[in-house]
C-alpha cells in the first residue's frame, strides 16, 4: 500500500488517478476482508463517485486538498449522512446517520474518499473486538489472533493494506492498543483537539477520535486536517493547529523524555526489552531520558472503569426505543416498553451499564464514583507536575502482544488490565501515540507509547517520528 504522502503526490502529479487508487483499495478489501472482517460495510458506489469528483477537480486545474484521493475507513460509531452507523450493535442495526460528523466533513473537505465503516467492539466497550455483532476481526499479522480493540477493524484495515488511513475512537486505549497489536501507528490526541460532533458517545469525559495509519508522518498529516475548534462541539479547543508534518522533522536534541517509575514492574520481558531499547535509541538521537514519578497513575485503570461506566450508563440511556435504537411497539406498558427495547444490548454493554448505575446509586456514590473522581484529580495533578520536568513520557502501549482469538484475556480483570498503560491518557486528557518498535519472541508487533500534555501533540509526533525513522 502506498503511503498517504505518495498517494497525494501521485494524484497531484498525474501519475495516478484517485479512481485508480480507490479501485486498488477496493480490490485489496475484496481479497482480504472475507478473512480479516475489518470492514462491516464498503461504500463502493459513493467512494468511486468521490474519487471521480477529485479527478474532475484536478482536470479543471483546481488546487486539491491535503488528502486528495486518499481512501479512509471510519469506525462504525462515526456518523456519515445517509450511511449506517451501528456501533456494531444489534441495538442500532438499522440506524442511518441523519447528518455528517465534523471529522468526516473535514476529511471530505480535504478531498479524502470515505471507503466504508469498520468493525469494533460493541459500543466501543472492549479490547479484543470480540463483542461485535458482526463477528470478530482477525489480526492481519496472524489471523489466529485478536487485533485488539475497540477500534480493531480500523487497525486491521490499515495493517492489511486495505486503506492507508482509518479513524477510530479512544476512551481507554481503543486506538493505541489495537495499533500496537497490529503493528501500525495509533494516535489519540489530547482532550478537545478533535471535534466529537457526530461521534456516538460512550464516556464523554474520556472519548476522543483518533487516527490509525501506517507511519507517523501520515498520522501527522491526518491530524492537521482533523484538528481544530468546532462550533458544534463545546469541548473542542480554541487553539491554532500547528504544522505537525513540519514539526516532526526537528531532531530530538535536548528533548526531555520521562520513564515513569513502576511502569516496568512485572512487565512481560519482551515488551520491557523493547521499551528499554526505545529509551536507549532516544538517547542516541540526542534526547535526555530520565526516570520520573507519577505515583497515582497506577490507579488509572480502576478509576477508568468506574467513571467511564458511570458516564456510559447515562449516555446509553438514550437507547430507550423512543429517542434511539430498537423499539418494541408490542409492549403492554411503559416499563415493559423500555425493558424490551433495551434488550438488544450485548452482555458486555449491559454489564458496563450495570457497573455504572451501581456506582451512581446513593449507597455507592461516595465510595465509588466520587472517590474515583477525586483520584482522577490526583492523577491529573501528577501529570501536570511531571510535564513541568519533561517534554514527553515513554511507556509501553500494552502489557501484552496480540493474544489468540479463542484463548487469552477472558477474565474481566485481565482484560481491564490490558488498558493499564493507555487509560492514564484518557483519565488525564493527555495526547498519546503508539508507534511500532520491533517484535516479541513470537514475532508479534510491540508498540511503545509517548504521552504529552494537552495541545502538545507535535512533541509526541516528533519523538515517535524520529524513533520510527531510526529503526
Amino acid at each position, binding site marked *: 500500500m502506498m503511503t498517504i504522502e505518495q498517494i497525494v503526490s501521485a494524484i497531484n502529479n498525474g501519475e495516478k488517478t484517485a479512481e485508480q487508487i480507490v479501485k486498488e483499495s477496493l480490490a485489496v478489501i475484496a481479497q482480504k476482508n472475507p478473512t480479516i472482517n475489518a470492514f462491516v460495510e464498503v461504500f463502493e458506489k459513493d467512494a468511486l463517485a468521490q474519487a471521480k469528483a477529485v479527478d474532475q477537480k484536478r482536470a479543471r486545474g483546481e488546487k486539491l486538498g491535503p488528502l486528495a484521493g486518499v481512501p479512509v475507513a471510519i469506525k462504525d460509531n462515526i456518523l456519515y449522512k445517509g450511511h449506517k452507523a451501528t456501533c456494531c450493535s444489534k441495538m442500532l442495526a438499522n440506524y442511518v446517520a441523519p447528518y455528517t460528523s465534523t471529522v468526516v466533513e473535514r476529511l471530505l473537505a480535504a478531498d479524502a474518499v470515505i471507503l466504508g465503516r469498520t468493525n469494533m467492539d460493541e459500543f466501543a466497550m472492549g479490547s479484543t473486538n470480540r463483542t461485535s455483532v458482526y463477528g470478530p476481526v482477525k489480526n492481519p499479522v496472524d489471523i489466529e489472533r485478536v487485533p485488539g480493540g475497540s477500534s480493531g477493524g480500523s487497525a486491521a484495515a490499515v495493517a492489511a493494506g486495505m486503506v492507508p488511513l482509518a479513524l477510530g475512537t479512544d476512551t481507554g486505549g481503543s486506538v493505541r492498543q489495537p495499533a500496537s497489536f497490529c503493528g501500525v501507528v495509533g494516535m489519540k490526541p489530547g482532550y*478537545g483537539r478533535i471535534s466529537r460532533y457526530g461521534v456516538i458517545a460512550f464516556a464523554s469525559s474520556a472519548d476522543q477520535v483518533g487516527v490509525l495509519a501506517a507511519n507517523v508522518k501520515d498520522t501527522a498529516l491526518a491530524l492537521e486536517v482533523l484538528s481544530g475548534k468546532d462550533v458544534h462541539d463545546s469541548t473542542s479547543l480554541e487553539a491554532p493547529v500547528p504544522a505537525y508534518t513540519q514539526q516532526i522533522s526537528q531532531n530530538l536534541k535536548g528533548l526531555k523524555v520521562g520513564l515513569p517509575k513502576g511502569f516496568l514492574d512485572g512487565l512481560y520481558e519482551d515488551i520491557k526489552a523493547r521499551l528499554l531499547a526505545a529509551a536507549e535509541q532516544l538517547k542516541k538521537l540526542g534526547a535526555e531520558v530520565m526516570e520520573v514519578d507519577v505515583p497515582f497513575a497506577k*490507579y488509572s485503570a480502576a478509576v477508568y472503569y468506574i467513571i467511564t461506566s458511570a458516564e456510559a450508563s447515562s449516555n446509553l440511556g438514550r437507547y430507550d426505543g423512543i429517542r434511539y435504537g430498537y423499539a418494541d*411497539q408490542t409492549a403492554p406498558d411503559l416499563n415493559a416498553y423500555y425493558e424490551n427495547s433495551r434488550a438488544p*444490548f450485548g452482555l458486555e454493554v449491559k454489564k458496563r451499564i450495570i457497573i455504572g448505575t451501581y456506582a451512581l446509586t446513593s449507597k455507592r456514590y461516595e*465510595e465509588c464514583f466520587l*472517590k474515583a473522581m477525586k*483520584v482522577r484529580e*490526583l492523577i491529573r495533578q501528577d501529570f501536570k507536575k511531571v510535564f513541568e520536568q519533561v517534554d514527553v513520557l515513554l511507556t509501553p502501549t500494552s502489557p501484552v502482544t496480540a493474544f489468540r482469538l479463542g484463548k487469552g484475556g477472558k477474565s474481566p480483570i485481565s482484560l*481491564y488490565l490490558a488498558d493499564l498503560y493507555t487509560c492514564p491518557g484518557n483519565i488525564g486528557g493527555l495526547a498519546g501515540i503508539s508507534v511500532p518498535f520491533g517484535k516479541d519472541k513470537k514475532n508479534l508487533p510491540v508498540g511503545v507509547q509517548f504521552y504529552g500534555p494537552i495541545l502538545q501533540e507535535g512533541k509526541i509526533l516528533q519523538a515517535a517520528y524520529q524513533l520510527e525513522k531510526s529503526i
Partner: protein
Amino acid sequence: MSITKQDVELAAKLAKMKVSDEEATIYEDQLKELFTWVDELSAVNTDGVKLTNVNLAAHIRPDEPISDSARAEQLRNTFTDQEADCAKVKKVL
C-alpha cells in the same frame, strides 16, 4: 465492597434493563471481582481534594438560542416525517 445478586438486579432495574437469572449470576461474579479490584482506591488519601472542571481548558457554554432558520430547517430535515414545521415521531404506546 460486597456485591450481591440483589445489587445487580437493583442496578439493572434502575437502568431499565431485564437481566435473566443466569445473567444476574454471571454479573454478580464479575462485579465482585471488579469491585474487589476497584477497592484499591480506598487506600488513596483524597482528603481535601477538590474536583476541577473535567473539560480541562474547555468550558461548558450556556445555552444559546439558535436564530438561524437554515439551521433549524437542517435539523428538522433529519426527521423523515414532517408536518407543518413539526417533526413527526413514532407512537410510543
